[in-house]
């Protein structure tokens, strides 16, 4: 059985895709996506999407790392097994600076990577767009816009004509095979 996923249109240059993306947004489509071999400068604004939320995950990671660093030094050298070193206080936020500095960076980096995966909903090894016969070219030198069937404005004929009007080539209906 086949399930229709959406209509794709390919473009040959970043400029064509950029202009077309603006028109798709103005037309009022909501469920659509651009596929590009490179991050196209200014495409986010053109598609009307906001800033990435990855920094929140970085911040959470960083704070966790900082607290972890402080906590282990206090617990290990001052609480669980107080160590006398040179008659200095058991704990101070100064001497273990390198420890919590490094842990802040370590946890923030993990937060960033996993935040990126989470926001991109990855890993996901199966996706309908992979069914497109020349999907691989979007990683090479072709650009593609896909308008999903889920979109309230989607109409197979109308959307097809619209994609043709904005300059899309080889309009294809992407189908996902379900066994």
């Amino acid at each position, binding site marked *: 059985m086949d399930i229709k996923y959406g209509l794709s249109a390919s473009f040959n240059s970043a400029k064509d895709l950029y202009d077309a993306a603006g028109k798709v947004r103005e037309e009022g489509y909501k469920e659509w996506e*651009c596929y590009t071999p490179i991050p196209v400068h200014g495409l986010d604004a053109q598609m009307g999407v906001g800033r990435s939320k990855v920094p929140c995950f970085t911040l959470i990671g960083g704070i966790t790392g900082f607290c972890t660093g402080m906590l282990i030094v206090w617990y290990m050298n001052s609480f669980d097994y107080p160590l006398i070193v040179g008659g200095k206080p058991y704990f101070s936020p100064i001497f273990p600076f390198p*420890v919590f500095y490094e*842990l802040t960076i370590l946890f923030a*980096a993990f937060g960033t990577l996993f935040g990126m995966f989470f926001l991109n909903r990855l890993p996901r*090894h199966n996706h309908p767009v992979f069914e497109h016969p020349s999907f691989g070219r979007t990683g090479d030198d072709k650009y593609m816009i896909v308008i999903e069937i889920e979109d309230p404005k989607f109409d197979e004929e109308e959307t097809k004509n619209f994609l043709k009007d904005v300059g899309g080539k080889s309009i294809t209906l992407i189908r996902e095979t379900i066994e």
Partner: protein
Amino acid sequence: MSTTKTELKEEIPADVLKKIKPAKWVDTPLVLNKRNFHWVTEKICGIVEQKTPTWWWWCFITAMCIASFTGLGLVYLVSTGVGVWGNNNPVNWGWAIVNFVFWIGIGHAGTLISAILCLLKQKWRTSINRASEAMTVFAVMCAGIFPLFHVGRVWFAWWLFPLPNANAIWPQFRSPLEWDVFAVSTYFTVSILFWYMGMIPDLAVLRDRAKETWRKYLYGVFAMGWRNANNHWRNFEMAYLLLAGLSTPLVLSVHTIVSFDFAVANLPGWHTTIFPPYFVAGAIFSGFGMVLTLLLPLRAIFGLHDLITQKHIDNMCKIILATGSMVGYAYSMEFFIAWYGANSYEGFAFINRAFGNYWWAYWIMISCNVICPQLFWFKKIKDNIPLVWIISIFVNVGMWFERFVIANTTLSRDFLPSSWGYYSPTVVDIFTFFGTFGFFSILFLLFLRFLPLMPMAEVKSVMPQADPHGGKH
């Protein structure tokens, strides 16, 4: 840009223009010969997809043979005891610390290229950053071997980490060596994360091009299902920028903490505040030396002249020149402070460095690190690729001797002449260090064979075709 140019021309009368003959601004492209995106994909994927070249096998076998020296050295050391190294009293650190700092330093150029140059929007970094990051990761692996085995009983090395053990004691967090554990392991982990994340879009390209099932499967797994969607790129770019922002203070802190191993000790010649910046500059200096040593042959073998252009080589030479001069400045400043500080022990340490028992090491260091890079002032030398390569080797040699001079001249001449000594490496020392070059080469050759040598998306995004605004931005 184009509008301002015409405006200027209108303002200046034609006869004046004729008289002053304004110089033409030549904007050298980063990818030569007007290549297109498809060419870049074919070129970089081609390296991985082609049949394994014969030279690769020869290099790989040679690297395996060389690496076996490290294996032999370590097996002998573990089965006999750390005394088989030349370390003695008073030189307890010997080659172990020298090799550790040497390899860690090499790694730093990779992070500089991928992180600091990214924040500074240096677009030329794109074609060299992947290979340099790989160099970072592999160099840190080589570095880790030395402190790991220097602890003597390597099976207890996990005591360095704050893990509960049967002795019920914890690490002592005031020790710079403990800080090193945190700094180096964080550096290694974050370098791998950064390297891997940057590779995801390229792995997806390799996955989509793959014909064999094993390739489809393995590249597929590691590409995480990346699908080039703008939404993916949006989060990816933000994450990349943040990782660059995190790696920058990290790389500076790592070599700072490595220098604390010395600077926190109360020994003349070590106990100086100049150490952190001086070590960081030295690390970047040696790292760029290694980047040139690795990339110039690759450029010739794979015909990457359009991607790694003369401009890239010039820029790297300039960084070597700048950091080499900083290192030279630090050497002279150390001498000045030793004299100006009027501390007789400090004064002796430095006179001893230049004219004492290790004078030969000191002068090798000065000629390789201070004099050699000064040749890069001349365009003729920068254009001569074999010569640049030879100088890059000198830089590597010089930086190894720098660490040797710092560690050994101070330790071998202690406060009391009764505890003076002289350090010479044993065969086991030499084997272990020599073999790490083989270990590094094995990893680098595997990287060349299976992973994309350059970040394709990043290289493409600095090409004129990537501009969606038709040059009007």
